[in-house]
């Protein structure tokens, strides 16, 4: 058993958050000076092999965050709602998978939600200063007062997580319960998880714990058991223990090699700099041209020629050889 986190204190003096503005490591659309000392990185570890798909995490998330999801419909699956929504920050996704090697049915159940990437694509994509922050403990948090609801985070996210609320038009996703972590608690989902398929602690602890789990799984014949901490996004602060870590995509489309899309990189990188440069160049070129070439003015002669033309008096012929392109 991973040692439970003691019950929270309700005393008013226990409420001072242990991290905040000064621990912001990245801030969307802003330059920040990273804190001199990084907080110990935290992580949530989701052990898919221990998960019984009970959805306690989903319920706890709804309750803690005071979210009201709609009562939906059955679509022939246990996955409900059908997808993450602005009110469903976390979702159990159920996959019936027949292992081609053993021909045994395996019911793969994965808790989907924000991975809290070390290199967060949402933050990279976000145009609104401070709408997304990353604390130096690894938590990527949305600040709704700053969010403009553009949905760029959705495009930036390699895991398809954020959702825009139709009510307040801001983006929502798992906060890793930053309010709870700030007072020394774990996230609500982790607290609830009946089988400790979700545990929470420092990232190092979680990796050590995962190792124990992987050893156990290998002893039970899951040779490809492993930790999902994808390097493509610099590692994540929500990690999975998978029995089939060689093929993450069988778990309801968990990306095999997630990374910030090259398109997003190009958009927020190259395009931004090159684009600004090109536009600046165009403006500068015009300015320079004006300085060098001077204004292109109509001469008195031109006016006279025009008057003559209008009066029916033939204007002087142009210099020979220069108007060969003209229409007869």
């Amino acid at each position, binding site marked *: 058993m991973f040692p439970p986190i003691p019950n929270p204190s309700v005393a008013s003096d226990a409420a001072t958050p242990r991290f905040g503005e000064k621990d912001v490591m990245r801030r969307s659309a802003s330059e920040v000076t990273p804190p001199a000392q990084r907080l110990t990185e935290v992580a949530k570890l989701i052990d898919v092999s*221990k998960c*019984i798909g009970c959805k306690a995490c989903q319920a706890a998330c709804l309750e803690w965050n005071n979210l*009201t999801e709609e009562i939906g419909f*059955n679509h*022939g*699956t246990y996955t*409900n709602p059908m997808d993450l929504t602005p009110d469903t920050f976390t979702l159990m996704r159920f996959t019936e998978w027949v292992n081609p090697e053993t021909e045994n049915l395996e019911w793969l159940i994965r808790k989907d939600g924000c991975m809290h990437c070390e290199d967060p694509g949402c933050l990279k994509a976000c145009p609104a200063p401070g709408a997304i922050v990353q604390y130096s403990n690894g938590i990527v948090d949305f600040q709704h007062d700053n969010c403009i609801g553009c949905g760029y985070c959705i495009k930036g996210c390699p895991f398809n997580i954020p959702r825009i609320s139709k009510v307040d038009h801001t983006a929502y996703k798992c906060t890793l319960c930053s309010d709870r972590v700030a007072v020394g608690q774990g996230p609500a989902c982790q607290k609830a998880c*009946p089988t400790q398929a979700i545990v929470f602690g420092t990232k190092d602890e979680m990796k050590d714990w995962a190792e124990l789990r992987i050893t*156990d799984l290998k002893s*039970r014949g899951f040779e490809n058991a492993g930790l999902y901490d994808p390097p493509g996004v610099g590692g994540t602060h929500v990690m999975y223990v998978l029995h089939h870590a060689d093929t993450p995509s069988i778990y309801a489309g968990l990306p095999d090699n997630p990374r910030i899309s090259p398109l997003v990189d190009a958009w927020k990188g190259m395009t931004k700099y090159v684009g600004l440069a090109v536009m600046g160049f165009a403006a500068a070129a015009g300015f320079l041209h004006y300085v060098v070439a001077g204004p292109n003015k109509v001469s008195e002669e031109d006016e006279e020629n025009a008057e003559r033309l209008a009066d029916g008096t033939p204007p002087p012929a142009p210099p020979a050889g220069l108007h060969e392109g003209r229409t007869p």
Partner: protein
Amino acid sequence: MTNAWTDIKNTDLVIIMGGNAAEAHPCGFKWVTEAKANRGAKLIVVDPRYNRSASVADFYAPIRQGSDIAFLMGLINHCISHDKVQWEYVKPFTNATFVVREGYAYQDGLFTGYDEEKRDYNRDSWEYEIGPDGYAVVDETLQNPRCVWNLLKEHVAIYTPEMVERICGTPKEAFLKVAEMVGECSTPTKTMTSMYALGWTQHSKGSQNIRGMAMLQLILGNIGVRGGGMNALRGHSNIQGLTDLGLMSNLIPGYLNIPTQKEPDFTTYMSTRAFKPLRPNQTSYWQNYRKFFVSFMKSMYGPAATAENDWGYNYLPKLDVASYDVLRIFDMMKNGKVNLYFCQGFNPLQAFPDKGKLAAGLAKLKMLVIMDPLQTETARFWEDHGTFNKVSPADIQTEVIQLPTTCFAEDEGSLVNSGRWLQWHWPGGSPPGEAKTDIWIMAQIHLRLKELYQKEGGAFPDPIVNLNWTYKDPGEPTAEELAREMNGSVLADVYDPVDPTKKVLEAGKQLSGFGQLRDDGTTAGGCWIFSGCWTEAGNMMARRDNSDPGDAGMFLKWSFSWPANRRILYNRASCDVDGKPWDPSRKLIEWDGAKWTGYDVPDIAPTAKPRDVGPFIMNPEGTSRLWVRKMMRDGPFPVHYEPFESPVANVIAPKIRGNPVARVFPDDWKTFADIGDPAFPYAGTSYRLTEHFHYWTKNNHVNSVLQPEQFVEISEELAKDKGIELGGWVRVWSKRGELYAKAVVTKRIKPMTVDGKIVHIVGVPIHWGFVGAARKGFTANTLTPFVGDANIETPEFKAFMVNIEPSTGPVVA
């Protein structure tokens, strides 16, 4: 549960059969995952559906619903024939060596004494041979062909792996894999735990399903040990407590019995309750029955219960039938024999089988009284909800009174968990509106009724006007007062009979345990097994020290566990005959040469010498029972009987329909589909989903979000046969009713081959109804048959026959 939730971490093998622990008890299931992670324990799931428990199992074996006994007897047969028996346990600690009297026999699915007319046995031959010394005869060599062991061997021989496959549909290889894993637990250092629930009880032979596993556990030596046991995962938060407190037709608190009309006086009543030991030196603890009974009567009637009036024996009603269980009462209701009915926190219109019959019964009542914190279908059975509840209110003359009650968050008191822990809780919120506690309501009803009788007189007012109701505020007794009363207290000073100057018990003091109860009216105690819960030292149920010496999982200082704060029942059996633990690394208690010590409260007299006294102290044998004498109506050994509605005839006894002694009311036979009826070709089963709690969470928005809409589960093969689409509407109907639901087409259900015939399974989750926050749906019990277990009348919800077709959904009128 014989053991505690936290003890499951000590096991080596978990077998989940007849339940779905991960789904129904996720937080208790945690201890399975702990055992797996820390001890390398394995998990086996045997179930018709590959369910959430199976999703984390090491091995899953399919089984057709209603065929568990064949599987279990097959396992016993395998263990016996492969010598996977813990002999050092079986010989001294079970009745394997006991010799059964001549005249007892078993043939073709029936035991001696069957009366087809009465659907009952004359069970007189089901007894031990009694020797000249007045004790049961035993044969420690196991040579006597009539000893229990040899009878068992003979009884289970028919359940070969091939037979198991034929009856259960479990592939032989899968069965053998389970048998092999189970057999490994026959060594003294390996234990298996059985976790079961309504998947076993809700059959017409539910009790025998459980006995089957209990016998297997005894053969493996797994009862009384850490990480072993028979663990009934109780459903509701205090259903254990309500059963302990005897809120049943035939019970008195602490598993004492309401008298029958064959026991006209107290002497006759006590004459069959002597519980004389069947072997020398045995404890046979029920010999104290009289103390428990008299103390209960003193608690019930106070000064009005006297030696002269046999402690108020005649204040108790006398039964004319085995019990007035819920099936019987609803049958009576339908026949117009019931006028007034109370439902306290209960929704029978959904909870009992055959909704049509239930609704017809309710409509014949004069008055229905509902006490509930929430809306229920029962309270609104007269309300027209179109296709979901089509009734004509004007035609229903039942007066309904609905009383709002508090819920757990607003009241104080104790609940008994599945592991028998009595845990105290405190209120956290104010009741909404005018909601009142159930205690207040019951007190008000009592006081008003008493007043009417005092004013007007009437039929036998004595038990009502003499009811001991001496609470500070009679209008609302406190939880503390009632808890103290259940624990028991001293009514008059008691002096040592040897030294009359020495006061043994002082009047007015709380008892420290049931050992102090007396049969002379000097003590009162509402529920003997709870004695020790609120002593002079205070409220033991409110203790919150979670220390756990030896990391044993016992938590003796956390709350109070009945009996006597014991956490594992029969824990004497965790040691060999000499009192040494079978597995020293999992010591529970041990004999230190002078007394029993250890991590748990010993389930034996602290100084009872190991070889003298047997570990099963409640039984007159001093041993456990592989063969139960005449204590069960349907036989001393379990026999495979088909459900009343079944796709195939009983392979081992083709002429027997269902359980031959299960009670069927005359009107109900015609509501059952015939065996193999082509109109109802699919084997239905009902169950609950982890997102829901029975019918309550219809009132909870969050849970309604997590599983929003009614569905049934079928295999891909059946879906293809019937042209049913994933997520499409289907109509499912039995001979009793129909429902519409969405189709979850899944690989987790597979068709099975049973006796050469393909059997498809239709899974019908319960929950939905016509009130609450959730989407409206149909009550699943429109489908289920009105028949119960032969011993305790648990309805057969787990096995019935249905048909299914694609549909366009219900027409909402």
